[in-house]
């Protein structure tokens, strides 16, 4: 059907990649297109199944939970007398992620600026690859390095902070020396650096060149150019980059499991950065051996479900910002 083909051709939108050039409707085409479409639908079904099975397995335990799931810190899985709440994990997860973000975001943005506007392109590529190497180190290696190598080195510094700022509950003495949220946050910050740097770099490279040149042409210093032309343009991109990093930080499992020391059951709540603790992910990982009855398993899966919802929300917001930005550029 040459006629149909030309027609399709003519009103095809001018997209960069030529999609959907229809050429007859042979059976092979329909089967292949069906496979492609089916795979797309399968992926959607897969994520729907993740949510469905987590909810299905968690619900019976949530139904028998005698504590208030969202507000309680209690975690007691005695059969027939389930008490489990996620408030403690929620606090530790958010605190450690927030601390990691506080360290990583300014540094990552600094690196991205350095590579985009300070380094000649010839060197920027290899140096960026060096930062990407940080992402190639498996998280378990960060974990063992964090607890056996970094933690003892951080201890004196952490001690000084405790002494100087101990009046503030966030820096209070706890008696925990290794495996603190402080150490975990530092390691987590290093782990999320490459993703924030990579996304920020991409955003900065899209800053319209005429704006950069105009600023420099008017006699702006390099920093003034960044402040006047780059940062306003890249702000939403950097926010979404940070959100992607946050998504990673919230869900990181094994490094945090290895690093954080677990407080004894029933220990009083302490807000301090120098305390141990358990995040959603590390709680589940620490108790992997306890998945022996459906009720217990359900309790841990309920915690996993909370983590899923949390990371889903954070990542969705990040993606929405990224995509709305693409329309602008």
């Amino acid at each position, binding site marked *: 059907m040459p006629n149909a083909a030309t027609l399709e051709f003519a009103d095809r939108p001018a997209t960069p990649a030529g*999609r*959907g*050039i229809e*050429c007859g409707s042979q059976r*092979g*085409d329909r089967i*292949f*297109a069906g496979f*492609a*479409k089916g*795979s*797309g639908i399968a*992926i*959607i079904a*897969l994520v729907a*199944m*993740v949510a469905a099975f*987590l909810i299905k397995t968690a619900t019976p335990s949530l139904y028998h939970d005698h504590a208030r799931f969202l507000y309680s810190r209690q975690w007691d899985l005695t059969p027939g007398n389930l008490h489990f709440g996620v408030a403690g994990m929620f606090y530790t997860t958010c605190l450690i992620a927030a601390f990691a973000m506080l360290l990583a975001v300014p*540094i990552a943005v*600094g690196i991205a*600026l*350095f*590579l985009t506007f*300070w380094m000649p392109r010839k060197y920027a590529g290899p*140096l960026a690859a060096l*930062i990407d*190497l940080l992402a*190639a*180190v*498996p*998280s*378990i*290696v960060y974990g*063992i*390095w964090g607890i056996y*190598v*970094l933690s003892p080195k951080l201890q004196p510094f952490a001690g000084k902070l405790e002494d100087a700022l101990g009046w503030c509950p966030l820096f209070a003495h706890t008696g925990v020396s290794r495996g603190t949220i402080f150490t975990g946050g530092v390691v987590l910050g290093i782990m999320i650096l490459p993703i924030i740097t990579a996304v920020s770099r991409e955003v900065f490279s899209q800053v319209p060149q005429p704006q950069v040149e105009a600023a*420099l*042409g008017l*006699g*702006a*210093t*390099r*920093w*003034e150019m960044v402040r006047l032309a780059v940062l306003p343009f890249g702000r939403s991109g950097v926010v979404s980059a940070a959100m992607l990093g946050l998504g990673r930080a*919230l*869900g*990181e*499992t*094994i490094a945090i499991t*290895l690093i954080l020391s677990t407080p004894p059951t029933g220990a009083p709540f302490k807000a301090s950065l120098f305390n141990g603790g358990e995040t*959603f992910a590390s709680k589940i990982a620490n108790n992997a051996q306890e*998945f022996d009855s459906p009720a217990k*398993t359900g309790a*841990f899966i309920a915690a996993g479900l909370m*983590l899923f919802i949390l990371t889903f929300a*954070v*990542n*969705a917001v990040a*993606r929405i910002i990224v995509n709305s930005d693409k329309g602008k550029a």
Partner: protein
Amino acid sequence: MSTAFLAHDVNVADRAAGPLLIPAARGRRIRNLAATAFVTLSFVVAVIPLVWIITEVVVKGAPDVFHPSWWSHSQNGVTERREGGGAFHAITGSVLQTAVCALIAVPLALMVAIFLVEYGRGRLNSAVGFIVDVLTGIPSIVAALFIYALLITTFGFQRQGFAVSLALVLLMIPVVVRTTEEMLKLVPDDLREASLALGVPKWKTTVRIVIPTALPGIITGVMLGIARVIGETAPLLILVGYSKTINNNLFSGFQGSLPGMILNEATNITLKPAEGRVWGAALTLILIVLTLNVVARLIARSTSSRAKK
């Protein structure tokens, strides 16, 4: 802008030579210097842990890794206090679990990428794109819990290596889809149009023209995907037990793996032989991941330069 007249007495030739030659007022110069110092320092600060981790792992792990038995023996019968044995059981376990994961994930991811680039339009396309993004952000422990809820709680299977492979599939798909998508978009439209104009059906054009052209890029994506999942530890914790002996059966029994070996030996890290094995397994893992990354990058570079021509 006030910055303009500050530089009014500089001649045009100087200005054309570059912004640095324009004398700026002292305050502005200091602020610029501070910014330069900050961004340079950021870079240096990020490189420190990288160098530190790599040296630590190499120095502590190399003696074990460069021992010939490391690559040929398991830890069967070797107690924590004794030297000897190797990581063969862990390497084979990791490779098997990852290979089976790739066998499932790659065809699916490839078809999804083809759908997104060659067929996808409208709502379904953006829905699939969004879901791939969701998968990118899914924590590995959540993927593992899903497989646990599905395979073990619902269908009553035992914990086994195959369950780990399935959890890894969820983590590998988004990496492969995203890289493949980029590569398919790089294939010039002229190629597709030439083929279609000759009357070749679209599916044959995709299979015979588009995919072979993008193949190096697709391989890059697969390697990056493998590098992403081979070091994953969370699924191992809840989906399979660790074994010091060689078990090549993904469908039954405990199975060794490199992250599993690190965790297992780390419980005795105060003992010298166990410590060596922890860092040895870490070094092996890094070597595998780095090799995959470097090879992937080399392939990607050769393709993108070819596409530009």
